[in-house]
């Protein structure tokens, strides 16, 4: 394995990186600007990226704004996440044909394209690891996820600025990328320069990097320090905090906390938070058949614990109140997830805060419960629970 010393790439070399990945048979997907938001889509060339754009985020608010430079990655996360590709919003499970009394399953879905993800942030890398544990790390593996996940080439990006909604530092996921990636980039822009400190995180990454022939095969110490400082700056911009100390027991023992009634008065049960969350994985299945009744399909679609039908069993829904649904979502995310999959289900990306139409803030809801726990039982002190 090649040594993993940081190298330096020019803007032109990033352009070449995209072409090189195409040449290796990858469909490159990454951030693009559409309808006033940064969303993930196919990237053919560098100018498809949100060059010179940034975002302004607050609880219930998202705006794009021009930057006064030509940064490629000068914004944070938008409404979409990579689950768009790995765990698609709609996917056909099967097609079946009836013949006489019986039927045949036609399992002839084309294989999904091999993809390279360009611009994966630290919290998103953590979110992919969370979904890996849910969809392929447990008793059963989801073959649909596995087929899309296998062989992904990840170009991660260290954040050099944070949004007011970010709290990755609380969840132990960012702003520096950790974990499995092929290449990681730190963008340095300003004062007439535009370059990228790059590190390989895997053999595949090192191979591609070698082919790029970096401007400096070993980035100078000064450049490395500059990159380090840029990521530090992002970390120090982060204002939001979620104290994860003993959070599982805190939420388990506050099932009857009055705060759930309070949040239920604000929550519209619109499910936005679950759609934008990069770790939410719930799905439903819909059956369709043609008029002749000989052709049937089953489609898997994202579902949300905020819908009334989600918990329906004959006779009625188990969670019919808004209170019980918000409580289920937040308790699952921050508490039962730990029991189920060994880590928090929240990576601190802040999307649910930004995209909630009424600005409900998960960090604020936790704080309210922590500050006046309803239950007298002492919450056991335990190590904090972010992501491993």
């Amino acid at each position, binding site marked *: 394995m090649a040594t993993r010393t940081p190298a330096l790439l020019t803007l032109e070399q990033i352009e070449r990186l995209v072409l090189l990945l195409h040449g290796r048979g990858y469909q490159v997907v990454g951030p693009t600007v559409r309808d006033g938001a940064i969303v993930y889509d196919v990237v053919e060339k560098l100018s498809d990226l949100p060059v010179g754009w940034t975002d302004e985020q607050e609880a219930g608010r998202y705006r794009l704004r021009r930057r006064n430079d030509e940064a490629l990655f000068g914004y944070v996360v938008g409404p979409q996440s990579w689950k768009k590709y790995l765990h698609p919003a709609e996917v056909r*499970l*099967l097609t*079946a044909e*009836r013949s006489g*009394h*019986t*039927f*045949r*399953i*036609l*399992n002839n*879905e084309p*294989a999904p394209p091999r993809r390279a993800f360009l611009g994966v942030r630290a919290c998103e890398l953590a979110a992919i690891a969370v979904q890996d544990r*849910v*969809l392929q790390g*447990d*008793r*059963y593996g*989801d*073959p*649909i996820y596995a*087929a899309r996940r296998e062989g992904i080439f990840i170009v991660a990006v260290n954040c050099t600025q944070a949004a007011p909604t970010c709290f990755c530092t609380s969840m132990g996921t960012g702003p520096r990328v950790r974990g499995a990636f092929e290449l990681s980039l730190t963008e340095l822009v300003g004062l007439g320069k535009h370059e990228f400190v790059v590190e390989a995180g895997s053999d595949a990454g090192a191979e591609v990097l070698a082919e790029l022939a970096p401007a400096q095969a070993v980035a100078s110490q000064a450049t490395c320090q500059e990159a380090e400082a840029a990521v530090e700056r992002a970390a120090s911009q982060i204002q939001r905090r979620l104290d994860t100390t003993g959070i599982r027991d805190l939420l388990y023992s506050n*099932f009857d906390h009055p705060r759930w009634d309070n949040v239920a008065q604000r929550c519209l049960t619109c499910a936005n938070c679950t759609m934008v969350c990069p770790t939410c*994985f*719930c*799905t*439903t*299945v819909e*059956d*369709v*058949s043609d008029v002749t*009744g000989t052709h*049937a399909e*089953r489609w898997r679609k994202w*579902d949300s*614990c905020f819908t009334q039908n*989600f*918990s*329906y*069993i*004959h006779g009625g829904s*188990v*969670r*019919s*109140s808004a*209170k*019980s649904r918000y409580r*289920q979502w937040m308790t*699952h995310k921050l508490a*039962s997830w730990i*029991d*189920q999959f060994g880590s928090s289900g929240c990576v601190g990306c802040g999307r649910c805060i930004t995209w909630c139409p009424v600005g409900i803030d998960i960090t604020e809801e936790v704080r309210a419960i922590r500050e006046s726990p309803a239950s007298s039982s002492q919450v056991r002190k335990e190590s904090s629970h972010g992501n491993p």
Partner: protein
Amino acid sequence: MMATAATVDPMLPQPYSVRQVVKETSDTFTLTLEPPALEPSSGVYRNRFQPGQFSMLWVFGVGELPISISGDPAARDRLVYTVRSVGQATQTLVSCEVGDAVGVRGPFGTGWPMQQAQGRDVIVIAGGIGLAPLRPVIYEVLHNREKYGRLVILYGARSPHDLLYRRELTAWARQRETQVLATVDYGGLNWHGNVGVVTTLFKYVRLQPTRSLAFACGPEIMMRFVARDLETNGLARENIYLSMERNMKCALGFCGHCQYGPHFICKDGPIFSYDRMRPLLEKYEL
């Protein structure tokens, strides 16, 4: 993804064909399904199952449902289900005719702890359709009589017409070391048995609490009372088992629907010991 249908993919149903349909009550039918001629070798699709496990049954073009296996675990050439028609998919399922195809996935979930039950009295407590996932327990005990202690079957239904497996109930009652008691909510003129909820039957049972295992399945409210009364009668919480029910779309732990506190009913359950369920059963709208 290029594999032939259903050999490896746990999400693809296998077409089984309906061999027999038996009407149990006005709304409940027992379906016997036969596997396709060529059975895939993958373990998931064998007809072997543990008493208490369930399948996902797919009705072509309509939907897929969790249904417990209600047949004899020793009969490996078929899968038997008892279905109560309560909505669109179950209605279509019970209207199946001999020769029709039904999609089958599974078996899924945990079974009743038969190993642990060996050498002990087995108390089976069922409400309504809840007898279906317990019938394989009864077959297992009666086929291997020497392995188990007494078999006690306590069964509650709405009315005498709603009692499932009526002929078998009578036959089971004649077996040695077996006690069968039924109760109904509304008896009518010709009913000479007990009237009242299933817990009212406890007083007729000679319980040996320290050497018994109790298995209960029925409406959640019923199981709550049953478990409480069993505990009052001296059974330890860890010797009481309940079969839980929640909405399910995949049975593999991916769809999220069946979550019950930290548990996924589909893969961690549906059968849980009462000591694990008790704190959760107290929580309304969990």
